[in-house]
C-alpha cells in the first residue's frame, strides 16, 4: 500500500532513485561510522573487522610495541595471495612448459613481470617479517599465559610460511628451482643416514618414504611439479588462512596484545589527548561481543587509556599494509625475480643452493644430512614450540627483553651466539672435520659429532649456565633463543655468500671461477 498519498508507481520511481543511498546505508548496520558509538557498531557489525576489539589500548598502538610486524606479515601474505592468483592465469604446471609460461609472463603478459616480481619479493618480505614477528613475540615475552596456545599457532604459521615459500620455489622450473628442490627433497630423505647406519633401511625407510611422498617419484619431475603446485596454491594457503584466523581470534580472546603490568601509567601522558568515554568506573565491561575469560586487561577495570579502534587502529594497520606494499613494489621495481636457464636434470648447478632461508640449514647439512636436515631443525622447532610451557614466569611480560638478565643477557648471548657459530665454522673450514683425520671413522660418529651438533651443544651449555646464574628459566630461554637466532644468521650468511662450487669456502663469489 503506497504511503503518503504517492502512487505506488511514483514510489517505485523514488525507490529506484534512492538505491545508491540505501545500499550505502544498508552496508553499515548501525549507520555510517561517524560517532564513537556508530564506530563501535561498525566494527563488531562487520565480518572483516569484528576480530578487532572496539577500543584499542594506547600501549598496543605504540610503534615500539609490535613494530607492526604481525600486520606486515599479514599484508605480505595478502599481496602474495593477490599477485599469486593473477599469476595463476598464465602459469602452466608442467615441466618445460612451466618455464615457458614464466617467460611469457615476463615478456608478453601486461604487468606480468611486475606482478611476478612483487609476488617474489612479498614472499621474501613475509618470511623475514614472520621471523622478526616471532622474535618480537619472544623478546617481549608475549607467549606467556594465556597466550601459550597462540604462540603454538604462530609456530605453525612460521612452518607453513616456509613451506609456501619453498613449494613456490620449484614452480618456475629453472635450474635454480630444480636443484634447490632436489636438495630439499634429499634433506627429507636424510633419516636414511640413521637407518642406514643402524642397518634397518630395508624395513623402515622413513627418509625414502618422506622423499617419495614429497616428489611422487624417484626424482624431481612432473609429478613433483604438480604436487608442489597443489601445495603452493591450495593446501598450504588454506592451512595458512585457517591458522591465521585462529591466530587473530586468539589475540582477541587472550585479551589483546601483552602489556606490561604498568602499561596504563606508561601511556598516561598520551591518554590525556583523548576524549574519555568512561570517566566513571563502569559496571560492566565494554566487551559486548563475548564473555571473556577472567583476567584480561579490561575486565574489572576502567577501559581508560584506550582509543576507538576506528579509526586509530585502522590507520595503523592500513599504514603498515601500505608500507609493506611500498617495500614490495620498490623491490619489484629495482630487481627482477630471478629466472635461470631451463631446468636440466643432467647438469647440476654448482653450487646448487636452496632458498636463502634454508641456506643455514644447507650449511649444517653439509656436515651431516641427518643431524643438519632433520635432527637439529627438529630440536629447534620442538624447542620453539615448547617455550611457553617451559618458561612460566611472570616477570617482564610485555616488555622488550623483559625478565631476569634482560638486555644485558641478550647482549652477551649475541656475542656468544656469533662467536660460537663463527668459531666452529672457521675451525671446520680451516682444519676440516673427523673424516679428514680418520678416513675410516663410522658414519654414526660423524652424524652425532659434527660442527652442527657441537654448535648446538655449546649453545645448550651456555643456556644452562644462564638458567643457573639468574636462577630463571626465562634467562635460559633468552640465551638460547638469541644464540640460535645469531647462529641462524651466521650460517645463512656463510651459506649465501661464502660457499661456492662444491660447497667450498670462498671469500667472494668472484673467486668461484669458471667451470
Amino acid at each position, binding site marked *: 500500500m503506497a504511503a503518503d498519498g504517492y502512487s505506488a508507481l511514483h514510489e517505485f520511481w523514488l525507490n529506484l532513485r534512492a538505491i545508491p543511498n540505501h545500499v550505502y546505508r544498508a552496508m553499515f548496520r548501525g549507520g555510517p561510522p561517524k560517532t564513537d558509538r556508530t564506530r563501535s557498531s561498525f566494527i563488531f557489525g562487520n565480518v572483516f573487522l569484528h576480530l578487532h576489539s572496539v577500543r584499542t589500548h594506547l600501549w598496543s598502538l605504540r610503534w615500539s610495541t609490535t613494530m607492526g610486524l604481525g600486520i606486515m606479515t599479514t599484508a605480505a601474505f595478502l599481496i602474495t595471495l593477490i599477485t599469486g592468483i593473477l599469476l595463476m592465469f598464465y602459469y602452466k604446471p608442467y615441466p618445460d612448459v612451466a618455464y615457458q609460461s614464466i617467460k611469457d609472463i615476463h615478456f608478453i603478459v601486461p604487468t606480468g613481470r611486475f606482478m611476478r616480481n612483487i609476488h617474489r619479493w612479498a614472499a621474501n618480505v613475509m618470511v623475514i617479517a614472520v621471523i622478526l614477528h616471532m622474535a618480537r613475540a619472544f623478546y617481549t615475552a608475549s607467549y606467556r599465559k594465556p597466550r601459550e596456545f597462540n604462540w603454538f599457532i604462530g609456530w605453525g604459521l612460521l612452518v607453513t610460511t616456509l613451506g609456501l615459500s619453498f613449494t613456490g620455489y620449484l614452480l618456475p622450473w629453472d635450474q635454480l628451482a630444480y636443484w634447490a628442490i632436489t636438495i630439499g627433497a634429499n634433506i627429507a630423505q636424510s633419516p636414511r643416514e640413521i637407518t642406514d647406519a643402524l642397518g634397518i633401511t630395508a624395513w623402515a625407510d622413513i627418509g625414502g618414504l618422506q622423499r617419495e611422498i614429497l616428489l611422487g617419484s624417484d626424482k624431481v619431475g612432473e609429478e613433483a611439479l604438480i604436487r608442489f603446485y597443489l601445495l603452493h596454491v591450495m593446501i598450504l594457503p588454506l592451512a595458512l588462512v585457517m591458522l591465521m584466523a585462529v591466530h587473530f581470534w586468539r589475540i582477541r580472546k587472550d585479551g589483546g596484545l601483552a602489556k606490561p603490568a604498568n602499561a596504563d601509567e606508561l601511556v598516561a601522558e598520551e591518554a590525556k589527548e583523548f*576524549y574519555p568515554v568512561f570517566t566513571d568506573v563502569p559496571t560492566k565491561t565494554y566487551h559486548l561481543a563475548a564473555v571473556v575469560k577472567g583476567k584480561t586487561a579490561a575486565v574489572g577495570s576502567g577501559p581508560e587509556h584506550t582509543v576507538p579502534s576506528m579509526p586509530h587502529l585502522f590507520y595503523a594497520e592500513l599504514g603498515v599494509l601500505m608500507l609493506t606494499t611500498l617495500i614490495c613494489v620498490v623491490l619489484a621495481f629495482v630487481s627482477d625475480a630471478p629466472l635461470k636457464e631451463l631446468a636440466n636434470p643432467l647438469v647440476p648447478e654448482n653450487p646448487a643452493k636452496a632458498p636463502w632461508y634454508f641456506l643455514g640449514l644447507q650449511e649444517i647439512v653439509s656436515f651431516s644430512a641427518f643431524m643438519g636436515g632433520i635432527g637439529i631443525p627438529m630440536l629447534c622447532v620442538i624447542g620453539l614450540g615448547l617455550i611457553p610451557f617451559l618458561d612460566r614466569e611472570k616477570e617482564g611480560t610485555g616488555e622488550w627483553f623483559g625478565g631476569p638478565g634482560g638486555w644485558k643477557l641478550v647482549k652477551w648471548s649475541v656475542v656468544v651466539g656469533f662467536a660460537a657459530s663463527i668459531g666452529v665454522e672457521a675451525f671446520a673450514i680451516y682444519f676440516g672435520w673427523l673424516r679428514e683425520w680418520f678416513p675410516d671413522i663410522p658414519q654414526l660418529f660423524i652424524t652425532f659429532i659434527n660442527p652442527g651438533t657441537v654448535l648446538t651443544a655449546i649453545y645448550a651449555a651456555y643456556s644452562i649456565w644462564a638458567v643457573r646464574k639468574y636462577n630463571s628459566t626465562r634467562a635460559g630461554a633468552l640465551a638460547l633463543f638469541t644464540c640460535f637466532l645469531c647462529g641462524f644468521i651466521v650460517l645463512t650468511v656463510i651459506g649465501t655468500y661464502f660457499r661456492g662450487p662444491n660447497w667450498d669456502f670462498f671469500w667472494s663469489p668472484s673467486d668461484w671461477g669458471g667451470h
Partner: protein
Amino acid sequence: MTTHPSEKKSRFDPEPMPRRDFLGLAALGSMIAAFTLSIFGMLKLPKAAVSASPAKKFNVALPDTLPEGEAFVPPGRNVAVFRDGEGVFAISTVCTHLGCIVKTSSAGFDCPCHGSGFQKDGTVRKGPAPKPLPWLKVSKNGGVLTIDEEANVKTGTKV
C-alpha cells in the same frame, strides 16, 4: 577528535562533533588512489599482449585432382578451399552463430550445433546464424596458395 587537555571531561558531556580530519582524509584518499591504480594494472593482466597460437596466415598446395565444388580442408585449419572454372576461393568453416565447425553437405554447409545452414557460397540458408560464412583472402604465389584466416574478402572473390 582531540580536545584541549585542560578541559574538564566527563562521559556525560556531549560527544564532540568530529572535525574534518584533513590528514586522515588525505591518507585514505591516497591509499584509495593507489588501490585504484593497482586494480587497473590487475585488470590489464588477464588479456595477454599476444596469444600463443600459430600464424593465421598459411600456405597450402591444392591437390591437382580436386573436383569442382568439392571442398579441400587443409589439415588443422578451419577453412574450406574450392576450385572452379573462375578460380580458387576459401570459405571459413567457423559458424557465425557460436563458432562450431560447419560440415560441407550437398546443400552447402551445415552446422551440427544449432542447425544453421549455409549455401555453397556461405550465405545463410536456415537457422540462427546472423551472418554468412566469411570468404578469406587467398593470394597465389607460383603454385602455392597463401590463405589469411584473419582477412575477409567480399563474397564471390576468386583468384
